């Protein structure tokens, strides 16, 4: 990657006290050092305490090292693991490291995707090199500064815990060197540590944000409080895309504390009514008193039972070709007794992160300030700009700590931020916090799409599949968004077939086709996206094949996997070993369920111990083996997989479905759409990370796909039934 180095004009430097280097290549690396104490040697310049937005490392006089994280922290631990990379290469004193969530800015964009984002389990994968180099460059500049002062060569110095040590017993703290380091040319080439020298990376390091999250001091977006702030809620059309015909807002306006009531555009070309008040409860009460007559004429009324029928029908016909390999008519030559025909159904799923969606905006006419726990900062910033008539540089966009996301905070159409902007626009100078209530959230769309699969498998004499015809039906997540160009070719949205089309199983005659019906329900990626349903289908069918072949399910997978499926073969072996003892010792009424799946370049193999208690699956234990390349923070990874296993039960819950009837979403809160509680979640989860020096891959989403098929595979062994429709209502 070619990079040019330029040093900002010296006088500018001293006045603004920063140093910047930018690389022109597509990766866009930027190293900045900020020092907020006086720079010596300035003639008559005022001491500037400036924190321009494009800093990654800020060394404070007291020794604290502020590291900017270019991703939203919403539970996945990136706020700790990315700084670890930088701090390790920098040889920083970890106890002095403070992580901050970077605001929206060009330099914080994902090096690969070119937008500031978190998703696709790509944080470590895409910023691994970036943050290491940032740390190495910073270290090099500090050493150069020390070497200059001591008149020695940099190679004669070493660093440890925020101190540079020179020959003859000299030493200097980073905080004392930082000013001088600002004047050192930023080196183009840096040497990264060998893994043997890592002090942090590869070690179990506790999260930096635990304590504030345990004592109530951590502020999330919803907690924001600004002087003069108002709170807004929106009455959304109960059917997507509708608009009010008439509104009687007299009762709403008469609630003390209500400031205004007015119409705004909402998603899917619909219109809603915004209520702005001094407090949330006031706004909510007032909204309940609105009398809205909605115009549903000409509005599509999606209905789950109708969609199910339609999807089932579509699944019986070939769609757009995603993968075609081998002979198209290979199935024809296989007797029906050697075939499996399986139809699967998956409902809409709502993400329901614990912190309801919210965005705070203050519009100042020629500028705006935004506070949002966003997974898509620069996308949202641009969208807000469209509504307010501003460009991104005119919008300061603060990244707030978010209470979960699972994809719900990465929305291509930025609909929540657009609503907030439309409201803030009417209150120049006043910050307005838009809150979506839990009901708004459950009923507001942007779900994991509904899906149907139809699979026909022709089985060979050895029990292995020799022909596989697979039709997937479901809305395209990216259709109509700027992301469509990246995911969709030949009418196939990759995100609908990932996990099937790219299967690592050796299937010689393989045809995967897709139908993408158009439905007015807004859809979105949900933690592990296509793998949420494709892994379920693949891993339950593989298990069924194993049973038919009278083979052990692990052995069957080992045989069927392609030889180059290294991550899956490796994790399968580790899982087999680590679970052998309990699998061979199951109490009566328990069964083991097996699965393995690779997603986002991470291979995972899984064994679960399940029994049936109160007509529900009770998961006593999960053993997981993971290959994610270099494990930056094994504690984060363990956490992600333990908790991810609990999250993954979501789609098995009896009330784990969003359904629509005649256009209306039938559920409204956790009473009707119920995520896993502690009793529904696995009791114990042991995680085994396969040692690797390959480049790191993600751990945010990979825990999810393996769990539900493994549980259902265990259930099948207990009941003899096959489970092909989710949610799991009856066992």
């Amino acid at each position: 990657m070619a990079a040019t180095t330029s040093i900002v004009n010296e006088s500018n430097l001293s006045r603004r006290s920063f140093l910047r280097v930018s690389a022109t290549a597509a990766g866009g690396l930027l190293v900045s050092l900020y020092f907020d104490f006086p720079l010596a040697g300035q003639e008559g310049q005022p001491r500037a305490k400036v924190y321009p937005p494009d800093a990654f490392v800020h060394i404070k006089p007291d020794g604290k090292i502020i590291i900017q994280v270019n991703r939203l922290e919403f539970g996945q631990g990136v706020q700790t693991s990315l700084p670890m990379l930088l701090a390790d290469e920098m040889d920083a004193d970890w106890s002095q490291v403070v992580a901050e969530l970077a605001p929206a800015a060009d330099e914080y964009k994902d090096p690969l995707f070119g937008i500031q984002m978190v998703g696709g389990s790509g944080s470590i994968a895409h910023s691994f090199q970036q943050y290491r180099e940032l740390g190495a460059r910073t270290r090099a500049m500090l050493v150069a500064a020390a070497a200059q002062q001591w008149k020695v060569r940099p190679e004669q110095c070493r660093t440890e815990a925020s101190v540079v040590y020179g020959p003859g017993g000299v030493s200097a703290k980073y905080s004392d060197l930082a000013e001088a380091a600002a004047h050192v040319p930023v080196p183009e080439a840096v040497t990264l540590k060998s893994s043997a020298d890592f002090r942090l990376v590869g070690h179990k390091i506790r999260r930096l944000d635990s304590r504030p999250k345990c004592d109530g001091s951590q502020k999330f977006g919803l907690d924001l409080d600004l002087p003069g702030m108002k709170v807004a809620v929106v009455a959304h059309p109960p059917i997507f895309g509708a608009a009010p015909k008439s509104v009687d807002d007299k009762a709403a306006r008469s609630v003390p504390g209500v400031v205004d009531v007015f119409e705004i555009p909402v998603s899917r070309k619909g219109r809603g009514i915004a209520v702005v008040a001094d407090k949330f409860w006031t706004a909510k009460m007032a909204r309940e008193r609105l009398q809205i007559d909605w115009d549903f004429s000409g509005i599509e009324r999606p209905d789950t039972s109708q969609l199910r029928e339609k999807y089932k029908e579509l699944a019986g016909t070939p769609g757009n070709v995603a993968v075609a390999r081998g002979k198209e008519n290979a199935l024809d030559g296989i007797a029906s007794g050697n075939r499996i025909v399986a139809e699967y159904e998956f409902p809409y799923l709502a993400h329901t992160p614990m912190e309801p969606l919210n965005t705070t905006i203050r519009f100042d006419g020629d500028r705006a300030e935004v506070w949002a726990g966003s997974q898509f900062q620069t996308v949202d910033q641009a969208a807000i700009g469209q509504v307010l008539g501003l460009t991104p540089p005119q919008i300061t966009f603060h990244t707030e700590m978010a209470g979960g996301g699972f994809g719900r905070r990465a929305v291509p159409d930025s609909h929540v931020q657009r609503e907030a902007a439309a409201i803030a626009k009417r209150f120049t100078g006043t910050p307005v916090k838009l809150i979506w209530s839990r009901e708004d959230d459950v009923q507001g769309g942007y779900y994991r799409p509904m899906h149907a699969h139809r699979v026909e498998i022709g089985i060979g004499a050895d029990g292995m599949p020799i022909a596989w015809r697979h039709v997937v039906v479901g809305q395209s997540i990216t259709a109509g968004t700027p992301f469509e160009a990246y995911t969709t070719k030949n009418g196939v949205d990759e995100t609908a077939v990932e996990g099937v089309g790219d299967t690592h199983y050796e299937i010689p005659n393989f045809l995967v086709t897709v139908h993408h019906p158009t439905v007015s329900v807004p859809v979105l990626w949900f933690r592990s996206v296509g793998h949420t349903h494709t892994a379920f289908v693949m891993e339950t069918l593989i298990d069924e094949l194993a049973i038919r072949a009278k083979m052990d399910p692990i052995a069957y997978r080992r045989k069927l996997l392609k030889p180059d499926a290294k991550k899956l073969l490796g994790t399968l072996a580790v899982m087999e070993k680590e679970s052998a003892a309990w699998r061979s010792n199951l109490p009566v009424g328990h069964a083991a369920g097996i699965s393995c799946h690779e997603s986002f370049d991470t291979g995972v193999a899984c064994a679960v111990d399940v029994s049936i208690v109160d007509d529900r699956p009770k998961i006593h234990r999960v053993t997981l083996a993971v290959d994610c390349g270099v494990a930056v923070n094994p504690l984060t990874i363990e956490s992600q997989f333990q908790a991810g296993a609990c999250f993954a039960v979501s789609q098995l819950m009896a009330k784990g479905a969003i359904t629509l009837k005649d256009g209306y979403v039938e559920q409204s809160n956790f009473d009707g759409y119920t995520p896993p509680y502690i009793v529904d979640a696995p009791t114990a989860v042991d995680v085994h990370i396969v040692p690797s020096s390959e480049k790191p891959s993600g751990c945010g989403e990979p825990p999810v796909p393996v769990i539900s098929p493994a549980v259902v595979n265990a259930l099948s062994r207990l009941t003899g039934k096959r489970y092909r429709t989710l949610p799991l209502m009856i066992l």
Partner: protein
Amino acid sequence: MVHRSTAMLRRFFILILVGCAAWSAASPGALGQDTATKEVPVQGSREAGLAAWERVYSVLTHPRCINCHTATNYPQQGDDRHRHLFNVVRGPEDKGVPALNCATCHQGANADSTGVPGAPNWRLAPLSMKWQSPDDRILSSAQVCRSLTNRAKNGSGILDHHEKESLVLWAFQPGRRRDGSARSLPPLTHDELVAATRVWVEAGTPCPQNH
């Protein structure tokens, strides 16, 4: 099941009896535990008592009452008597468990603004007062009657309970749901329940034989 025509007759008969009855209250206390309860004279016919019992039974088995008289380790909710959400459980003293007590949500009065019903000492009826089977089916009139009379020797405690227990009173003023709609009421008023109970008690708490 009492046939409607005979029920009408019995109701008329009871009204007369109620008007004539003179009864002094026993000292308040938990059902069946007060051994100093005055003996109640048996007045009125067995038929009158049985008819009165059916009226009482109709109230006991209404969701506002029976939702907490379960045979399981959980209460029920709603007119459809579904299992109470949020994994609440009975607990050792019928009041839930630490961190998930009944009082965790249910206060001493109805919270209409949030839709949570409340009354003093909100709790499950003890298992000794279960009127459902372990699979959540409502027990028959004969079964419930037997259950009640096995506990309390002559029923004056029951009368007291029906007259004064805060949770019984609650059933007749059960508050509003979140959407503002009123919760459904038992088929009798509180006064009617007390009156019917009195008749049944005075008749010697007769129980139907078959059902």
